[in-house]
């Protein structure tokens, strides 16, 4: 399982990378692994306001359509349009292929997110529950 050290994570398996007050958001390796082949990504609308914890877009695999929850609050300023035609990019490299960029209204929210170590532990616990 790939969990890069420099990112922050949610318990619902999203990752965040902050650059100049902007949060790049995607789904984790754990998420893509468990979803299976991703066939469709429903991107959020550019300009829409989101609250941390909101279901702001969804990812559809051959198994299920799952909501993606925004790790932070703010405004969606960019979406990764290439996912519309190539949703499988999320399977191939979930960290390179972010889903949306959010201009954060409260950058402090990032501090409350999990670091790589805590997230790895969280994944282990979930794996155990599923097993």
């Amino acid at each position, binding site marked *: 399982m790939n969990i890069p050290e420099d990112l922050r994570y949610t318990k619902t398996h999203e990752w965040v990378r902050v650059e100049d007050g902007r949060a790049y958001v995607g789904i984790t390796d754990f998420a893509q692994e468990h979803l299976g082949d991703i*066939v*469709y990504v*429903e991107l959020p*609308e550019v300009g829409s306001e989101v609250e941390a914890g909101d279901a702001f877009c969804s990812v*559809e695999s*051959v*198994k*299920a*359509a799952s*909501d993606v929850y925004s790790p932070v609050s703010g405004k969606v300023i960019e979406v990764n349009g290439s996912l519309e035609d190539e949703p499988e990019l999320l399977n191939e490299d979930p960290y390179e292929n972010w889903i949306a960029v959010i201009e954060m209204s409260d950058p402090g929210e990032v501090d409350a997110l999990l670091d790589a170590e805590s997230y790895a532990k969280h994944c282990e616990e979930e794996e155990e529950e599923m097993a």
Partner: protein
Amino acid sequence: MWSYIPHTREDKEKMCKALGIASIDELFDDIPKKVRMKGDYDIPGPMTEDELIVHMQELAGKNSHLDSHACFLGAGVYDHFVPSVIDAMASRGEFYTAYTPYQPEISQGTLQAIFEYQSMICELTGMYVSNASMYDGASSFAESAFMACVATKREKVLCSRSVNPEYRMVLKTYAHFRGVQVEEFGYKDGQVDVDDLKSKLNEEIAAVMVQSPNFFGVIEDVASIAELAHSKGALLITSADPISLAILEAPGKLGADIVTGEGQALGNQPSFGGPHFGFLAATEKLLRRMPGRIVGQTVDTEGRRGFVLTLQAREQHIRRERATSNICTNQSLCALMGAVYMATMGKEGLKEVAKLCYNKSHYAMEKLVKEGFKRAFDAPFFKEFVVISPKPVNELNEKLLKQGFIGGYDLSKHYPEIDKGWLIAVTERRTKDEIDGFASAAGGEVR
């Protein structure tokens, strides 16, 4: 005749003993005695099979039905001819007995039939994708409103009063519990009142909903209404008579985003108003917003053509409360009859049925006008039309029934503003003699 008896007396005694009770009545001890039924059911004793058949035939003989009367009633359900091949196909055990047999390993026949149904509906409506069918015309109409709301992220729809009143009632019931607002706009000379629509249309409207041919049988200007809806970012939803689509332009080519309709006219007997099926077809953009089941064509591990349910990821059994719809089923057998009908008639056959409906209904309209009935609207119609009767419609219908005719629909219940409005449907089954007889009988009653 013996009724079906699931348990013998010994079975019942054993069960009572296991439960530690003396009689079955003890199971109902919690229900107060005063609300329990006392005494026996007042029903006659048993009959022999022979007696029972005679009895049932006597009861059935009291009905006025499509074989005893010439029917001019429509209003959503129509007396079209149903070729006998349809029952022969639909009653085959492989189709008839299994309940939702969707496992592709054992159900290629059923899945292929649904796939073919979907393909034919797409062709008829001019749309990209069709689902495997819905309960009826009303439920597919109502479900399509929610598709539009999710797709546009808006929560209000505009629906024409020229749409079947029962569809509008179902729409409002569904919408009420989903927090979707429904506003109606009026009609003028039997068609959508474009000015009223314009005054109510704005950027908060998810969809404009019309029916064409509408409840009055009148053909709407779908292309103009679609353009108007799209100018405010709303979708255009239509409900269509599938028979009419054999000669009218496909709604998909006129700009409709979702096309729904009642499928009964395609090979399903009117019965007592059901069961029938609804169809729902949409543009590619709305593919993932479609409720219900969709069958797709694929290849198996050896490269052979096969069929499977597809795009189910948003269905209720997977997404629970976040599902796009709580429809989890379809009307497979009725839709199968629709598919067999379309395949049996073929493109030319379907066109012929539609042309006969058109010609005969126009002939009937002229005859009725000569008998003193007035046309309510000048607008073009397909197989149904409204005339104003000189006398109350319910009285007229009662008299005609005695003469062997099932008269038209009384519009007073849902359209009190149309005084003595009589909605007449004429299908390909009506002969010239029947139409002539009906018109002169009706004329005789109102003079």
